[in-house]
């Protein structure tokens, strides 16, 4: 009897795990979402910069990144540039990334700039 009761729950779990998006590691997320503007090396010279009115931040620069707190970086990734009075060209990634993934990305940025 107990086995029969667990069976539907097991299938429900399978269904949930088969349809929910999985968390990705920071390096993969950086490639997928950030490279397009911030560049393959993170220097702000990405594929899209040619016709941009505001240049993306150089993530490898300790000078450009050192003044930003982890909380600011989290906020700008989640809510976009306007949330910290910066450019609309930096979009909000809150619907693409979980809070945990964004925290991981902040740590990844700190490695790129070797600051903070």
């Amino acid at each position: 009897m107990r086995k029969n009761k667990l069976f539907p729950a097991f299938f429900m779990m399978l269904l949930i795990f088969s349809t929910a998006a999985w968390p990705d590691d920071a390096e993969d997320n950086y490639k997928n979402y950030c490279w397009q503007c911030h560049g393959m090396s993170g220097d702000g010279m990405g594929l899209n910069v040619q016709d941009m009115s505001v240049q993306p931040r150089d993530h490898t620069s300790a000078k450009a990144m050192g003044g930003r707190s982890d909380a600011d970086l989290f906020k700008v990734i989640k809510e976009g540039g306007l949330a910290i009075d910066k450019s609309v060209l930096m979009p909000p990634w809150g619907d693409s990334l979980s809070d945990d993934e964004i925290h991981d990305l902040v740590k990844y940025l700190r490695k790129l700039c070797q600051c903070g």
Partner: protein
Amino acid sequence: MKYLLLFLGFTFASATLADDGMAILQKRCANCHDLSGPAAQSVQALWQRKGPDLFYAGSKYNREWLEKWLVKPRRIRPAGYHYIQHIKPGKKRDMIDAATLTPHPVLSSDKAEDVAEALMKLKAPAEMMGAAAFKGGSISVSFGEMVFDKFNGCMACHEIEPGYGGLSGPEVYTAAKRYQADYLVSFISSPQAWNPKTPMPNKHVAEPNIQKIVQYLQALAKENWDEKK
């Protein structure tokens, strides 16, 4: 009776076309395009997919455009389906690595018709489309460009005319030719509902402005871009 026979004949012909088209899809397209869903649930899984998912093609594409494009395919995404796989470091910025891009196969007009028929039968699940709908109306290209670029920054990733705009996303100056207006409204309002790992962000554009963006895309699509290139 005559009309009933005509109707049955048309229905049968349509079903046969779709059957033929599905056979072609399974044989020639399924290697690069997902035909059954769901969308990729991880970034790595997304990168394995060589072309856009087609399991909701009938809710996404305009049939007339599909038929023409399959006969004469032309690149829509300057840097390929996954831009990360087709770029290389350049002197001033990352550049498209053209050597890594491959052309889309060409179909005969008969096969293109069969495939389009089959694709139009692949409808999106209701939860993907949501309640989004295009409400009609029009806008000037200049005002539309303000909404698209200045207010929302979409040009960062999309070309709004050949050679002008971002390169990681698909060109948008032909988007309204390619896509159904309701799909565009739905996708802009929640790209992740369609493709959880898409590099397109949800910018939480206000609904009236989403309508204006689709009006803008329709205005752009009226230009004869082939002639201007």
